[in-house]
């Protein structure tokens, strides 16, 4: 019986050592290097997303800060305009107009369909009214001007005329035709079937 056990030769040892090194390298690559690279790549990807989010939120903060500054500036000057009501405040606006028109002698009012431009709603109306005195006409316009709901008088035409009374006497009267707009906002407003399409789109 032959006994063949013997030591590795030098070449064999070198080959075995090389194979061991390659094996270790592969194991390192598979179980250490790759997971670490993947972790770093994942973290960097998440950082990019976070940075984009931070940028977006910071822009929002800046815009909000500017809004706050503008509100502060308005309140410091005491020139805060009347409140713009959320859509749809036509009922309150009509009640307001009705209250003011009571002071006039005759009136005729027509409302246009509201228009929408982004969040801005405009509700235009035209009213012709007659008052006995110039003072009453001034009172009407002042009331409309300081209306608690945002309203601007676009056009107004005032003329002092003479009218003949039932008794046949001439009496002066003031006739005004004006076009004004109530402003409402879609911010906080609830859309309904009357809401027009956005003219910006």
């Amino acid at each position: 019986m032959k006994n063949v056990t013997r030591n590795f030769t030098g070449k064999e040892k070198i080959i075995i050592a090389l194979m061991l090194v390659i094996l270790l390298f592969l194991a390192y690559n598979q179980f250490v290097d790759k997971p670490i690279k993947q972790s770093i790549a994942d973290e960097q990807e998440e950082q990019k997303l976070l940075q984009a989010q931070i940028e977006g939120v910071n822009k929002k903060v800046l815009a909000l800060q500017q809004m706050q500054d503008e509100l502060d500036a308005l309140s410091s000057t005491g020139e805060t305009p009347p409140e713009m009501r959320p859509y749809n405040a036509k009922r309150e606006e009509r009640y307001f107009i009705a209250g003011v028109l009571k002071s006039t002698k005759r009136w005729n009012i027509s409302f246009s369909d509201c228009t929408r431009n982004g969040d801005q709603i405009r509700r235009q109306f035209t009213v012709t009214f007659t008052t006995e005195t110039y003072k009453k006409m001034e009172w009407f316009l002042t009331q409309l001007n300081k209306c608690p709901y945002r309203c601007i008088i676009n056009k107004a035409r005032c003329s002092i005329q003479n009218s003949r009374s039932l008794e046949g006497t001439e009496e002066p009267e003031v006739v005004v035709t004006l076009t004004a707009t109530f402003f409402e906002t879609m911010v906080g407003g609830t859309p309904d079937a009357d809401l027009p399409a956005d003219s910006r789109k």
Partner: protein
Amino acid sequence: MALSIKDKTAGLSRGHMPSKTSINFAEIGKQKSHYWSAVPVIAVVLVIAALVAKFGVLDRLEDVSAEEAKTAELQQQLNQANAKVDSFGELTEKYARLTYSGMTDAEVTLADRVQVLDLINTVLMGKCTVESWDLSGNELFIDVHTEGNELRHISMLADALEQDPRVATTQITSSNAVSVSSEDGEDQYMTSARIKVRLNKKEVIKG
């Protein structure tokens, strides 16, 4: 493999017999190695292992930790920014309701209508008769008449209007004088005019 020679022919003379009674060919040429000779190899292997552990594993894990810390810091920044947004509450709604956002420049810079009435009252009333006025945007047309045949009076009215800080410019667009016969038979003159007033724009804070 050991060979053993049991002499069956002990009686035979075969000359000199080898003194060795066993042999292992595998042992031939084998040099006896000492354990101490492995020390340098082990040391080299340990040094390489330490270097790999340091630069290939520990340093890399530190890189991962640094990236994780950076991510955590960004997450914290995002949370702080979100908290700041939340701190503004319903500012957007308040802003939409209380500022001029959404309105056009032409709308927000319209001259205050009450101030227009005040302008007519303070500058014209008592100096002439205001027949009518027509206001559109920041343009005001006023129809007036004065007694006498004097365009100068109308011109003075226009000048008085222009000196008011609420007025940008004035212009007499038309004027005429007519004579009216009075009850006592004397001719009385009346000068009518239309004055165009360009009002100053209202200054507002608009974002």
